[in-house]
Every structure is written in structure tokens, then in C-alpha cells.
């Protein structure tokens, strides 16, 4: 996944991104309003950038100069938004099978049974989203995105609002997904501890600009207590 000269303007806010995402889980770290969600929406195809190019596995997903814009439904990029956006009128089974018909053959391994087993949602299949706990909702949202067979997965602060114990549990599910399905993921967060626990690489975003990139340990200090941001750029 490669973004070249991508620019988005939203009133006073300007996002500029020139970045390549590698395999594994890449953390996108930044404060609120840094442009993390905007960047994800651009990659997912939910927002048209003003300028730039995005390619994935050699395929151009958008190129403003050549007037190419592949719509979200043809990108095979999974997206789990902050609010999860589970379909309230569908039960868990229908939610997670919603994108199934569109799953690509490259994701044939990710069968329904495997996903239900890993995410421990089999007992919830006939419940509606309203009756699920926070952690169950998160897992259903992951399952739904996985069932569509994504070639890349975007996770927008998936642990936001969860209590510490539940965070630990969902983190372990994410690690399981990472090992089982080997899908490259972009994990948006403003929590250093989540970056340390999940990501092999972290990209820092500050006020619409990518300000640093490296191993999580280059930026964050792991102590007994919470994890602290060491510095904005390890080279400085």
C-alpha cells in the first residue's frame, strides 16, 4: 500500500501523506484532530483526495492526475470505524456474512467457522447488536470485516472506550487475527501502549503531516506503568 503526494483539504485542516505501508500491523499514532481518520477514509475510498496517488499491490486505487478513482466497494480494503457501525437491524450472523459474497479467493482460508472460533462469537450469532457488550461488538465488527476477505485492514481506534481488562482481551484477539490471517493492517490509535503491544512499526501523524516513522521502541518507553511517548522523531 503506497500513498504518493496525497493531499486533502477540509476547511482550515490540510492533510499531506507520502507513505508506504508494509506487511504486519502498522500503527498510525497521533492526537485527536491529527488527521488519522481522514487518512483512513482516503485509503478506504470513502473520501476523495484533492491530489495524489494510491496504489495497492501494483493496482492504482486512485490517481487524481489520471482521474482514476476506484470506489470503496471494489478496493477489498476492510474498514472497522471508531463507532463500529454494526447494522442494527441485522443479527450478528447477518452482520458478519454481509460482505461474504464479495470475498476474494485469496482469502479462502478465512472461513466462517475459523473466524467465529478465533473471535469467540458463535454464542452471539442470533443476537442483535443492541444486546451485545462493548467487547462483543468489537469482535463482531472485526469478524464482519474479515469475512469480506480484505487484502488490507484499516482499524480506527478499535479499543476506544473499552475498559482496561476488555482492552487486553480484544488486543489478544487482534494478535490472533494477525497470526492467523497475515493481513496487513493499519491500526489508528492515540495509545502508546496499544502501539507497543501490537505494531511492528509506527507512523506519527501530527496536524495533517507525517512526522516520524520507526519501531515502536524508537518512540515509546515501556515502563511498569503506562507507556510514554519518548520523542517525536528518533533521529532528532
Amino acid at each position: 500500500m503506497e500513498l504518493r503526494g496525497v493531499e486533502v483539504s477540509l476547511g482550515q485542516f490540510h492533510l499531506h501523506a507520502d507513505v508506504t505501508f508494509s506487511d504486519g500491523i502498522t500503527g498510525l499514532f497521533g492526537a485527536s484532530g491529527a488527521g488519522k481518520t481522514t487518512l483512513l477514509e482516503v485509503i478506504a475510498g470513502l473520501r476523495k483526495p484533492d491530489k495524489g496517488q494510491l496504489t495497492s499491490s501494483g493496482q492504482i486505487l486512485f490517481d487524481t492526475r489520471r482521474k482514476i478513482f476506484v470506489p470503496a466497494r471494489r478496493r477489498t480494503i476492510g474498514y472497522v470505524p471508531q463507532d463500529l457501525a454494526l447494522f442494527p437491524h441485522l443479527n450478528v450472523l447477518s452482520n458478519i456474512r454481509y460482505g461474504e459474497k464479495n470475498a476474494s479467493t485469496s482469502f479462502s482460508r478465512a472461513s466462517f467457522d475459523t473466524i467465529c472460533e478465533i473471535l469467540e462469537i458463535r454464542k452471539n450469532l442470533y443476537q442483535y447488536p443492541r444486546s451485545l457488550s462493548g467487547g462483543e461488538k468489537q469482535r463482531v465488527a472485526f469478524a464482519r470485516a474479515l469475512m469480506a476477505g480484505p487484502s488490507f485492514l484499516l482499524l480506527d481506534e478499535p479499543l476506544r472506550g473499552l475498559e482496561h481488562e476488555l482492552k487486553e482481551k480484544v488486543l489478544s484477539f487482534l494478535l490472533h487475527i494477525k497470526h492467523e490471517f497475515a493481513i496487513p493492517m493499519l491500526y489508528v490509535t492515540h495509545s502508546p501502549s496499544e502501539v507497543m503491544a501490537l505494531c511492528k512499526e509506527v507512523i506519527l501523524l501530527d496536524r495533517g503531516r507525517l512526522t516520524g516513522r520507526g519501531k515502536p521502541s524508537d518512540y515509546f518507553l515501556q515502563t511498569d506503568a503506562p507507556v510514554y511517548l519518548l520523542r517525536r522523531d528518533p533521529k532528532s
Partner: protein
Amino acid sequence: MSLSASDWKIVGFTLWTAIVAVLCDLIPAIALAWMLARKSWRGKVIVETLASLPLVMPPVATGLILLEILGRRGLIGSWLYRLGIEVAFTWRAVVAAMAVMSFPFILHSGRVAFEAVDGRLEQVASTLGSSPFRIAFTITLPLAARGIAAGAVLAFTRALGEFGATILVAGNIPGRTTTISTSTYSKIMLGKDSEAYTMILISVLLAFSMTFISNIIVRHRTP
């Protein structure tokens, strides 16, 4: 206080024409409501204003305009007449008057219902590979259905009580175009107060039960 056979026929005719009118309204009103809620297009405000006019214009004026359009020499009426279809002063005119007068109810309820559907759900559905058509039928419409249904019930109630436009474009021809409202009017004019009150009671009962159903639909929660 009892209904004669002809009064029962009038009630049946009114219910039947009101159902046909609402069915005629449904597809264009839902489509326009979706366009107003989800799309930006030139002339949107003008179209919305025109579609809302029956709510604020005197029904008699709406009826006169309909007569000009649907009469034998009217814009559409003359064309239909050449095809052997007469509209003015037939049951079709009753349906047309009811449909025009009740259209804004479905349109406005539909628009509000579509606006209440979280656009995020549609976005996520698109990232799951769904076409706009599939999203409309699996996400947007089911979530807006309750609001649309409530609007349709209100539109049906409005159609049942329609008078001003109907009497101008369809008249009050016994056995052909007489509805509950026009029959009530005739009975009052002829001094048959008791019969008129029976028809009024039926109108009140129908209006109450339909509005009650509409409120129940709106209050019903997602599972």
C-alpha cells in the same frame, strides 16, 4: 345511528381509492425523499417546495389545477382521452386528488427517515463490497422503513378525509365518485344531520385508528 347499504359502499369506495392513491404515491415519494435526503442537485429546493405545495395551498385551488390538467381539454387529460381513458369526474380523479394531497406526507416522513439513517453504515457496507443498489435495499430502506410506513399511514388518513380537491376534480356523483367527505357534505346540505353525523363518526374512528397505528409504528424499537 346505522349505515345504509349505499353508505357502506361509500365507505368501501373511499377506503379502496385511498389505498390506491397511497400505492401510487409510494414509489415516487420514496425515490424523491431519498434524492432529497442523500443527494445534492440543482433545483432541489424548488422541487421540494413544489412537492410540498398541497400541504399549504387551499385544497380547492389544488383541485382546480388538477381539473385543468386532467380534464378532457387538459394537458394530460386530453392525451389520456385520446387513448380512451377519461379521468375527470371518475374514480380516477378521486384517486388523483387523494394522491396529490397525501403525497407530501410520505415525502416528508421518508426524507426524515432517510436522514436519520447513519451514513456511516452505508459507507461500511460499501467497504464490504456492496453496490449502491444493494446498500439501498439491505441497509437504507430497511432502516428507514418504519418512518416511511408511518408517513404512508398518515397519507392514507389524509386521503380518507380529502374533500376540497376531490369535489372539484371528481365531483360528487352518487355511486361513482362520492367519498365519505363529499357524502357528509351532501347530507348536511340536504338536512340529513343524523346520517351526516354517522359519516363523521366513521371519519373520526378511521382517523383515530390510523394516526394511532402511525404512532405505534414510530415508537416500535429495533430488535
